């Protein structure tokens, strides 16, 4: 068992997530990419927790999962509202905040 494998997996997942966030225009897919990033972090947590024989990693992972669920809930609600207002979920269109 090598820690490196998990870290590599997590890095790959993280990069896919970042790529998704930056390139996807679909709001739902952006949220899903954020989930990927969070799960990459979760993998790191669990891997380091096991590596250091510390249960704190798993506790944090559970904690992150709970927070991610809430975050997705809020995010989906925002996406839903954007859709209702604009009939589109393209995040590029939601540019009203520009200065």
């Amino acid at each position, binding site marked *: 068992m090598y820690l490196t494998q998990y870290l590599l997996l997590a890095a790959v997942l993280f990069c896919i997530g970042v790529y998704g966030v930056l390139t996807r225009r679909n709001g739902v897919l952006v949220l899903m990419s954020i989930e990927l990033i969070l799960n990459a972090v979760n993998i790191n947590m669990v891997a380091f927790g096991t590596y250091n024989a510390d249960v704190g990693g798993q506790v944090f992972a559970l904690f992150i999962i709970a927070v991610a669920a809430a975050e997705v809930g809020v995010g989906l609600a925002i996406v839903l509202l954007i859709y209702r207002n604009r009939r589109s979920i393209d995040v590029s269109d939601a540019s009203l*905040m520009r200065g």
Partner: protein
Amino acid sequence: MSIFAAAAAETFQPSDWLFENVWIVPAIMAASFLYILFFGKTFPGKDRVHYVGLAAITVALGFSLATAFMWVTQYEDNQSHGSEASSAFVGEGIVSTVEADEKEESSGASGQGCLAEDNRVGSLQAAGEDEYALGTGLLTDSGELAVEAGEDGKGEGHIKAKSVVRCLEWFSTGSFGGDTAQGSDNLTFNIGTIADGQSIMMLVVVTFISFLVHLYSTEYVKGDRRYVHYYAFLSLFTASMLFMVLSSSTLQLIVGWELVGVCSFGLIGHWWEEKPNSDAALKAFLTNRVGDIGLLVGMIVLFFGAGQTFDIETINYLAVHDGLSQTTMTVAALCLMTAVMSKSGQFILHTWLPDAMAGPTPVSALIHAATMVVAGVYMIGRLYPVFWFGLTIPGSSLNALAFVGALTVVGGGALAFVQNDVKKVLAYSTVSQLGYMVLALGVGAWTAGMFHLFTHAFFKACLFLGAGALSHACHHSFDMKAEMGGLRKRMPVTFATFMVGTLALVGVFPFAGFWSKDEILVGTGGFPSTNANGNYTLLLIMGLIGAAMTAGYMTRVIWLVFFGEYRGHVDPHDPPAVMKYPLIALAGLSVITGFLNFPSDWFGGLGTRYGLKFEQWVEPGGGSTFPVIGHGDSNLALAVIASLVGIGSAAFVWNYYQKLYAKDPNATEVTDGLRSRNKAAAGGYALLENKYYLDHLYEGAIADGTKGPLARAAYWFNQNVLDEIVNTAGRTSTVLGRFIYRFIDQGAIDGSVNLSGRGASESGGLLRKVQSGRIRQYASLMFGAATVLAAVFIVAI
């Protein structure tokens, strides 16, 4: 405090308690003043406000009489145990010295004492100067009554009681450098009381006359618009006069002196709506200011001369024991003499006193006859060693004080002849009598001067209150020629009391003035075999001329007021009871007070036993704080001559008016007399009528001569200096304002405000480009930044 503990351990002595607590008397009157001032207007029935004043003065009078009684009793007790006290005296001296040592150890206690007696006595003992130093080891041991074998010139060995001094620390300050009598760097200024024969005598005089005046005024100023104000001032005056006579330091004396001056000012101008009255008040005040400068300078000279102390006993002690140089004393005495001249109406500064008659008559009786005007005389008596040694010019028979007094006797008396206002005659008479007192003090007849002060207070108050009764009856006028005449039968009580007062003033045997004036004449030493201090024949002659004048002008008053035909147009009657009884009381005292000090060689054994009591009670023992002065022997021939001079003068004047009456019952002066025939007589009359042109001199020459140039100088100063300063300041500020507007306001302040505004606007323009609103741009920036942060983390850590 060890002193108090010791005092408590002793048995309670009512006399000591009274002597130590005489401050209560002025305090009562001060309380009365404050009460009337604050609550007088709202007092139930404003017209009854005099009850407050009367109650206060009654209590004060009782207290004073008790104190005087104790003082006399204590003296007489000492005499009857004379030998005992003498032997105990030695012991007492030793005890005092021991206590002085103790006091030196506890420095806290010595701060309580009035004097720096420890230091002073210590130095004197070391010098071995005087045998008295031991005996008077503690002049004032905070109320301890040391008894001293007084030497009163004749060496009769009367045992004089020491004055009782009680002081509190008023304030303390750093010294002015140099040696101080208190021997430390800190000067302590005390406020306190002296209880001795002189102050207790004044206590009785002031409270007694004040009591009668309070009573008399209830009727005299009834219904006056400033009734409350009047009684408030009476109380304040009494309080401040008592404060002054009891003062133990010269600083306190000055305060009291000025306070009585203020009361005098306020009461002379009581009816200030009329211009002459307010003018008279101002004149009195300003004339007194002239003397007050002398008072201040004299007291400051004494302060530094006596080693930076205001304490009266210390100053006197040093003056007696060569602690003050002759020059210091001469300068101080001359300066203080100015104050005496203004306050006690001595010649050339007397001009305010007759004008002061503008005030209500009871006030004139209280302030301008009996009490305040004798403040100067009292001060001479209080600081007698300073005056006595300071004004004695070696090898000369001229004493400045006596000369001023004699000049006043004659000058004031002459002016009384030409006045038509009965009060003004009495005022000039007061001037003249004050001259007698100063004359007596000048020639060393201390007791005679004080005794004349004492008797004069009663008979002159009697005369003034009598004049008030006349005015009360005669339509508020004092004009003898226009409104009076023939009042003998209409106002019998007033006539009788006025007559008694006159006889006392003229000095007819056996009325009070006879004894006191005779003693003054004896005191001049001009008459053969009187054995007085000096040998002033000129002063004796001036005194006799004064006596003749007194008899003359008083006869004129009596004739014009009470004899001849009534010339007024109202129906005069004797005053009501509250005015009548004070008159009777004062007349009674004018008869009997003279016997307090009749010569000891008169009336055989009676004289030996009861003669010269006033001298024994009041005069301090010579030696420690009082110079050793001689006492003249009374002389029957001199008394007879003085009486004959007076009677002759009175007879002459009487004859003049009787002849006039025979010619025309309504005439008050001869129309074709000496004046119309003789130029010199007319000139003399004009001189007297214009009061020696002194008012012209003061107002015309001095006041006008000063105020014109002074006004011009002030105008010039105003135009050229003050205005210039103001203008320059204005111009400078205009220029400065323009400069500030242009460079500082416009340039610096506005510039910085504009700069900050522009800065905010431009930085906003730059930053708004970042706010594109594109989510992915934000996200990429965030990730990029996070990556950079991570890189920094990795590299740095």
